[in-house]
């Protein structure tokens, strides 16, 4: 018996490409329980936090509602989503490094930029879909609870509300991509997650006392004070600028991650 190289099938592409990488990454993501747990925690946690935040805003006197932003109040539960979507991104990378799967990935598809691009596309798509579903769920749940408590409510038809809700979802997806980048850079789940939590939740506290308030440029405050608000809250930047900054942060982390991925031994 003689081994023969398989003849190329007619109409088949000449080389593996991004579509193959994306298909493989989708299988990888959805064949792990951790994915479902992460997504479940994202939903339950954020919705729970939303219910708490909005019910605490009910039954106050008229004066209390001066400057009250029902959209922002309903979306404040997303802080838990920030954590969970970061875990999703981080695990997509560190799950491979921790187990040696990365070597199988690079053996099956040695072009490293393509591998990272595939992961970015899949995490972006999944995180965006989940985050949008989440932000809209939080918004409607929050409004229902506010109405029940006799507080002012918002609707998507009001100016700025749809923008705040939709952009908050996209903002979460960007955070997921940032997590992915950190995972590729740090390669260890614990280290990458600590770094992620440090950058998102700890950094604003550390910067709190600086007079120029650089804390408002940190991801969580960009989300809480600018992007998820119809009426900007506290120290803030413009919502569009805030979203752009977050996109820049994630892009920078991913570019650095890509450079390291190319250079390092797997």
């Amino acid at each position: 018996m003689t081994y023969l190289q398989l003849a190329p099938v007619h109409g088949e592409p000449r080389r593996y490409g991004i579509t193959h990488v994306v298909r493989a990454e989708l299988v990888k993501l959805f064949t792990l329980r951790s994915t479902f747990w992460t997504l479940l925690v994202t939903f339950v946690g954020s919705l729970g936090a939303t219910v708490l935040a909005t019910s605490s805003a009910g039954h106050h006197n008229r004066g209390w509602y001066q400057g009250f932003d029902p959209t922002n109040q309903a979306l404040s539960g997303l802080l838990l989503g920030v954590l969970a979507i970061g875990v999703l991104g981080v695990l997509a990378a560190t799950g491979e490094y921790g187990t040696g799967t990365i070597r199988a990935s690079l053996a099956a598809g040695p072009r490293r930029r393509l591998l990272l691009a595939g992961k970015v596309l899949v995490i972006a798509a999944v995180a965006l879909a989940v985050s949008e579903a989440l932000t809209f769920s939080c918004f409607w749940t929050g409004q229902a609870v506010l109405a029940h408590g006799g507080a002012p409510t918002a609707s998507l038809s009001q100016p700025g509300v749809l923008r705040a809700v939709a952009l908050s979802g996209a903002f979460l997806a960007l955070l997921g991509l940032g997590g992915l980048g950190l995972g590729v850079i740090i390669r260890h789940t614990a280290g990458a997650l600590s770094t992620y939590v440090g950058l998102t939740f700890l950094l604003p506290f550390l910067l709190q006392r600086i007079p120029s308030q650089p804390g408002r440029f940190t991801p969580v405050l960009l989300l809480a004070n600018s992007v998820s608000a119809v009426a900007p809250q506290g120290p803030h930047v413009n919502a569009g600028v805030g979203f752009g900054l977050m996109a820049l942060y994630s892009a920078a982390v991913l570019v650095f991650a890509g450079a390291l991925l190319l250079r390092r031994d797997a």
Partner: protein
Amino acid sequence: MIAARGLSKNYGRTVAVHDLSFEVLPGLVTGFLGPNGSGKSTTMRMIMGLDNPTAGIALVHGCRYAELRWPLREVGALLDAKAFHPGRSAYNHLRWLARTNDISIGRVEEVLDLVGLTAVAHQRAGKFSLGMGQRLGIAAALLGDPGVLLFDEPVNGLDPEGIRWVRHLLRDLAAEGRTVFVSSHLITEMSLTAHRLVVIGRGKLIDETTVEEFTAKNTANAVRVVTPVSRSLVDAVLRAGAKAIVEDGGVVVVKGMTSAEVGELSSRNSLTLHELVPLRASLEEAFMALTADAVEYHTKERSTPPTATLASEGAGIYEMERS
């Protein structure tokens, strides 16, 4: 076909692989032999494009690994026993691998069957024993029906039946015209499986040869003789152009003569013999002697290199044949 040209890898100041050049030809099982820590895995990772060489180049089918069009259909590799996520089933592990290279799901089931994992294909791979993990790795290597196969210590963790299965598999794959490159630190395993050998120690090429040549070259015959007239025997042996080593208690080890020749020699010279035993260096001992200088991590027991003196060579390398 695989070609390494001047392949070198340094980790900081540590030289893992130094100026390694060799070729692995199709249709044969080529054993990649070296003690633990001699750079076998590093070399294989460089061939796979996983580690960047400090110098030199590794080519598969004449191109770098990263240039392969459908990597899994051209090269299959088992590099570490557990290169899969413990939370994913064997089936799903192979399924994502198949997706990367447009390989059919039917082929996934085929290789699962081939390695005998069909029954446990939907269990989480984290529950697998080392041997089952090894089988999954072999299934992944065979998934794309590739013409070039690399196996890093494939029999690790396998039971005797599994070891026999791997030996046959490697030979069959080579017989089909594929290039099969398999590493091991066990010469006995390689002598049963491989046709050709690439021998390395401390990251340097020691020999590139066939198993037959390696055996012939490194397992010279010797004869152990016990005689009350050791002096006379040694004189006779030296006159006959062979070598002799005198040990305690009238024991003489003769090198370069068969036991028949020694017997006839002593008969001609009327020398009394009490014992005449043919000795043969085992392939294992020969390999250890050959790579002794190149072993990085000596155990205490082996603190004296066996090749240092003829006397210790006589004592250390030769063992009784079928005693």
